[in-house]
């Protein structure tokens, strides 16, 4: 495996050298052509593009090139539309197939709401957050108050429990688009709980939002004291309304629904409160219920992925994302032979706790049929497995439509046909 990796790397280095050389050659060709066409051979005239006329909007708050058209879509395809007939928003997936790096642009961050709900138009000057219950001093904070506390800035993913892959989906937006990663800024919840004076009777807390259904989730107080963030910033600016403007709670590594948006109230409780969100999590068995809380180790290849096409045999950088609710990603491996052999992937950024990490593996495609997939392990030893391995652990017969208990973190294969077209390997 190691020797294969080294070989691939050597090939890749050779390839990039060739590309660099090619670049010079191509430049030469362009210049020659320009002269041949009778255009003035002014230096730099090869790139004679139309000009963008500056507008107020572009100056004040920039937008992307008209050639970049990647958008969010409803999830799942054929499911409940967003917006629906009432004007409510339910599930909308991020276009991972076009993603680079690890930060999801705020405009493309996936969206999910409690039951399909309206987005409240919150005036931050009027909004307050109240912490009460099992505390010595209940506290009501304005947004200005919140900003007076010491802040933290951390990279964290959020993933919806509905982020499940099956053989019917076409691309990675459908299979995995209900996860996104942002840089979040806010106050550690522990800072606020210490300010309130947490009582020893505190065991859980309920985080409640200000949308019309007042979505609420129960979270263990140990999690709140560890790494939850009362977040007001996302990717260098205030949260977007679709991500809970002006303030949400980040519950790193827990399913998306715990990350209450438009946060208005935190009630510290002695016992577990079953809110409507917990009713949604209800399962017959304790074990299955437990798997609906913290997200397991998970990864997916975003290039090449479903509906994309490799133009021809040669060198490619297989690229994807890995994350875990248990901590930082430790390793990612890539297989290009349907899981027979696995090769260690490189990281493109430093893995952080409960954050996407971009991985890559240089690969020479020989033009034959191939099945590519990735798997990851995290720093606490959890590993991502194939669906059949998971069925085996649960001692249930493995069938094509096997449903992984809890959030589906099983391996996702992509099939590459001889013509270079990429399709769902579970199909």
């Amino acid at each position, binding site marked *: 495996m190691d020797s294969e990796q080294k070989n691939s790397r050597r090939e890749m280095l050779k390839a990039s050298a060739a590309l660099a050389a090619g670049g010079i050659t191509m430049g030469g060709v362009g210049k020659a052509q320009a002269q041949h066409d009778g255009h003035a051979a002014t230096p730099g005239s090869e790139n004679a593009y139309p000009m963008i006329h500056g507008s107020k909007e572009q100056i004040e708050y920039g937008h992307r090139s008209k050639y970049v058209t990647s958008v969010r879509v409803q999830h799942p395809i054929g499911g409940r539309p967003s917006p629906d007939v*009432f004007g409510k928003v339910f599930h909308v997936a991020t276009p991972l197939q076009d993603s680079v790096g690890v930060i999801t642009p705020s405009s493309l961050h996936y969206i999910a709401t409690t039951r399909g709900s309206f987005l409240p138009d919150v005036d931050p000057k009027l909004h307050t957050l*109240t912490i*009460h219950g099992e505390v*010595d*001093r*209940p*506290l*009501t*904070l304005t947004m200005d*108050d919140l900003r*007076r*506390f010491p802040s933290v800035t951390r990279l964290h993913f959020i993933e919806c429990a509905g982020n499940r892959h099956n053989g019917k989906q076409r691309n990675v937006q459908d299979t995995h688009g209900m996860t996104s990663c942002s840089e979040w800024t806010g106050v550690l919840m522990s800072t606020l709980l*210490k*300010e*309130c*004076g947490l009582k020893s009777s505190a065991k859980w807390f*309920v985080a*409640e939002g200000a949308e*019309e*259904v*007042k979505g*609420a989730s129960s979270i*263990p107080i*140990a999690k709140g004291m560890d790494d939850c963030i009362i977040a007001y910033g996302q990717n260098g600016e205030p949260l977007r309304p679709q991500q809970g403007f002006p303030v949400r709670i980040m519950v790193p590594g827990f399913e998306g629904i715990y990350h209450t948006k438009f946060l208005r*109230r935190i*009630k510290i*409780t002695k*016992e*577990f*409160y*079953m*809110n*409507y969100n917990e*009713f949604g999590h*209800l*399962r*017959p*068995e*304790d*074990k*299955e*219920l*437990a*798997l609906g*809380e*913290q*997200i*397991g180790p998970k990864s997916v290849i975003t290039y090449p992925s479903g509906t994309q096409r490799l133009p021809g045999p040669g060198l490619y950088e297989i690229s994807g994302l890995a994350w875990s*609710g*248990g*901590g930082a990603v430790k390793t990612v491996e890539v297989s290009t032979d349907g899981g027979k052999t696995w090769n260690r992937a490189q990281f493109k950024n430093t893995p952080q706790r409960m954050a996407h990490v971009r991985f890559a593996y240089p690969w020479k495609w020989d033009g034959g049929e191939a099945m590519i997939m990735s798997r990851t392990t995290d720093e*606490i*030893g*959890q*590993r*991502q*497995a194939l669906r059949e391995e998971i069925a085996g*652990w649960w001692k249930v017969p493995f069938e094509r439509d096997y449903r992984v208990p*809890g959030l589906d*973190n099983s391996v996702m294969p992509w099939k590459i046909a001889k013509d270079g077209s990429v399709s769902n390997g579970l199909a």
Partner: protein
Amino acid sequence: MGSLKLVTVATGSLLLGSLLASSAFAQSPTYGVGRTPTAEELRRMDISIGPNGEELPPGRGSAKEGAQLYMQKACVGCHGVGGTGGLAPILVSKQSADVPVWKRERILPLRAPNATIVWDYINRGMPLGQEGTLKPDEVYSLTAYLLFLNKVIPEDQVLNKENLPKVKMPIGDQYGKPHEFKLNAPRLEGYPY
């Protein structure tokens, strides 16, 4: 130089003093930011209902009253006649009470482990566009109506703060309980994935 040193020493001991004070009164606020909400404010904003119903307001209501409200408040428009569904989810099971609850539809007033969850959700989330406007008696009545439709309580039972948490739900004890969350631990003890 000498006087400067003296100042440093003095500041140092002041700092030490304040550190000692803060450890002696570990529960005193560090930042002093924000304000203390009044008991009345908290009572109004606290809509969470725990399993023993201690936060439930006084009030009462029966299925008969609930059936009328179901029409008056236009619940019927989205949830259909008698909770049979429409644009919004169905609220009444189509299956017989002999079928185990986990084999029946996922309907809140049927599968909820505690009737207080039904009360809580109607109170905070209904009706569409007028969420939070129902009075306690109305919420008790609508809760009673939906529980009656699903054959959980008899039609003439009047629900109130005392008996709502005690309603025997069909699910009984047949549901998973939350595990004790541990930091830096696998999501399920002994589960490798």
